[in-house]
C-alpha cells in the first residue's frame, strides 16, 4: 500500500482511539482481556464449524454501535489483510473434496465448509483486534499490559515506539516524496536509492535519539521511567467482563443457531 495511505490510516485509528464513548471509557484491561477471550473462543471451534460462529457477530456489532466506530473503514482494512488467510484457505476445497452436506440439492465438499469457516474466523478475529485499538488508546493498552505483568522495559519500548512512529513517518514521508518527485517511472525507485534513503533516515534517527536522551537527562532521568499510577477499574468493568465471559461460554457451548432454526422450522 501507498506510504501516504498507510500513514493516514494509522492516524485515523489513532484518533478514533481517543474518543469518548461508553466503550472507550472502559478500563483498558477489561477490553484487552475480553478481546483475547473472544479470539481464543472463536479460534477454538473445529475446522468445519460455521453455524456456531454466527452468534459471535454480536460482539463486533455491539462495539461498532456503542463505540461509534465507522464500519466500512474497518471492513476495508480487514479485506486488505485477508490475502494470506485466503491464499492458504483456498487450498482446502482443493484438497478436501469429500462431500459433507447437501445444500438444497448441491453437494458441498468439506473443503468449502472449512474454507468458509476460516473466512468467518478471520473476519471475527481481525475485527476484534481493530476494534480493540479503535476503542482503546495505545498507551492505555500498554498500561493495561504493564498491570497484567508484562516487563517494564518492554512497556517503555512500546510507548517510545508509539510516540516516535508518527514523527519518523513524517520524516520518511518527506524523504519518500522527494525521491518520488525526482524519479520517473521505475527509475529512481531502485534498491540503491532505497538503501541511501534508509541509511540517511537511520543516521537522523540516531541523532534524534541523542537529543531525546539529552532531554531526558535534563529532566532528571536516571535509568528507570516512573509510570504514573492511575487505577481505574470500576464496577462497570467487572460487569462487562462477567457478561462477556458468560456470553462467550454460552455461545461456545450451545448451538443457539440451530436452536433458533429448529424453532423456526417448527413454526412454518
Amino acid at each position, binding site marked *: 500500500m*501507498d506510504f501516504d495511505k498507510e500513514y493516514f490510516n494509522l492516524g485515523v485509528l489513532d484518533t478514533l482511539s481517543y474518543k469518548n464513548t461508553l466503550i472507550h471509557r472502559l478500563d483498558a484491561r477489561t477490553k484487552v482481556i475480553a478481546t483475547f477471550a473472544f479470539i481464543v473462543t472463536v479460534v477454538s471451534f473445529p475446522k468445519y464449524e460455521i453455524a456456531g460462529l454466527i452468534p459471535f457477530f454480536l460482539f463486533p456489532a455491539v462495539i461498532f454501535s456503542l463505540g461509534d466506530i465507522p464500519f466500512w473503514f474497518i471492513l476495508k482494512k480487514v479485506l486488505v489483510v485477508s490475502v494470506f488467510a485466503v491464499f492458504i484457505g483456498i487450498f482446502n476445497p482443493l484438497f478436501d473434496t469429500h462431500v459433507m452436506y447437501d445444500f438444497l440439492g448441491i453437494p458441498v465438499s468439506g473443503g468449502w465448509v472449512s474454507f468458509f469457516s476460516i473466512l468467518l474466523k478471520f473476519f471475527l478475529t481481525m475485527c476484534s483486534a481493530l476494534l480493540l485499538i479503535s476503542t482503546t488508546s495505545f*498507551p492505555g493498552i*500498554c498500561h493495561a499490559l504493564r498491570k497484567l505483568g508484562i516487563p517494564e522495559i518492554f512497556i517503555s519500548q512500546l510507548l517510545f515506539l508509539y510516540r516516535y512512529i508518527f514523527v519518523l513517518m513524517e520524516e520518511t514521508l518527506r524523504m519518500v516524496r522527494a525521491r518520488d*518527485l525526482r524519479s520517473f517511472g521505475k527509475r529512481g525507485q531502485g534498491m540503491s536509492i532505497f538503501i541511501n534513503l534508509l541509511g540517511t533516515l537511520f543516521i537522523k534517527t540516531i541523532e534524534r535519539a541523542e*537529543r531525546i536522551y*539529552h532531554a*531526558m*537527562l535534563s529532566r532528571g532521568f*536516571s535509568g528507570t521511567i516512573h509510570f504514573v499510577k492511575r487505577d481505574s477499574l470500576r464496577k462497570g468493568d467487572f460487569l462487562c467482563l462477567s457478561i462477556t465471559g458468560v456470553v462467550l461460554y454460552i455461545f461456545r457451548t450451545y448451538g443457539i443457531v440451530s436452536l433458533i432454526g429448529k424453532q423456526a422450522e417448527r413454526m412454518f
Partner: protein
Amino acid sequence: MTHHIIDFKDVFFRYPDGTEALKGVSFRITHGESIGLVGANGAGKSTLLLQMNGYLLPSSGFINIGDLELTKKTRQDIRKKVGVVFQNPDDQLFMPTVYEDVAFGPLNLGMSAERVIDRVNSSLQTVGCLDLREKPPHHLSGGQKRAVAIATVLAMEPDILVMDEPSSDLDPKSRRYLMRLLKGFKHTKIIASHDLDFILEVCERCLVIKDGRIVADGTVSDILTNQSLLEENNLELPLSLQKTHIMDASAKGGLLPDPSHLHSDSINRETGMATAASETCGVMEGTLK
C-alpha cells in the same frame, strides 16, 4: 545571594573530532536577568547552551551555577536548577501523553503522587494548556507543543530557564503568546535565538557570540541597534527597527534601501522557495497517486 548566578570563567570546549567550539567564554549572569544570546550559525550558541546543564563539560575553564561548580558529579543537581527547553519540541515530548511528559521531571525528583499532580496542573495552567492534559503529543500543533515543552521544564521549578530558538516554527499568534508568557516569568532567562525582535521584546541584556568567543555584552537597546555589529555577525537589525528605516527612506523620496547586502541570503531564499514549492507539489503528487 549567590543562589542564582551563572558564572562562566574562561571556558574552552573542544569536540571529540577536534573542533574548537568555545575559545575562552566568560560572562556573569545574576538572578532574574533575562539574556538574549545571538550569533551566526556555527558561532557556538548551541555548544554554550549544552554546557548550561552539564550535558557537555568544559575542556578547560570553570562554570559555576548557583553555588555549584559544574562537574560530572554535580551536574545531576545542577539540572534541578537549570531547565533547558530545546529547539525541537518533538525531542522534548517523549512520553505518550502531555500529562506524563510534564510529570516526568517531578517523578524523577522523587515527589509524591499528590505533589506531582499539583505540579503538573499548575505548570500546564501557567502555559495555558491544562485542557491538553490527556492528549498525545502528536495530536498537538506546533505552538501547543512548544507551550507544553516549556511546561515540562517548569514543572521542575528551576531557577534558571534556558531556551534554544523558542519562537521558531510558531505562528504569529503563538509567538505573541510566548512573548507574553516569558515576560511574565521571574526566572533567570537565557534565550538563544535568531528572532531578534523576540529578543528585543523579552530580554534586557544581550550577548553576542562569534567564533567561540563573546564579542559583545550589553543592553538589548545598545546591541540590537548597532547595525554594523549585527551585520558582522551575519545578523541584521530587528525587523521592527528596520521598518523605521524604510519608512524614513520612502518619506525622503520613495527609494527603498539597497538590498545588495541581502544578496548572499537571496540564494538561500531561492532554494528555500524551491523546496517549499516541491513539497507542495509533493502533496499534489501524492494524492494523484
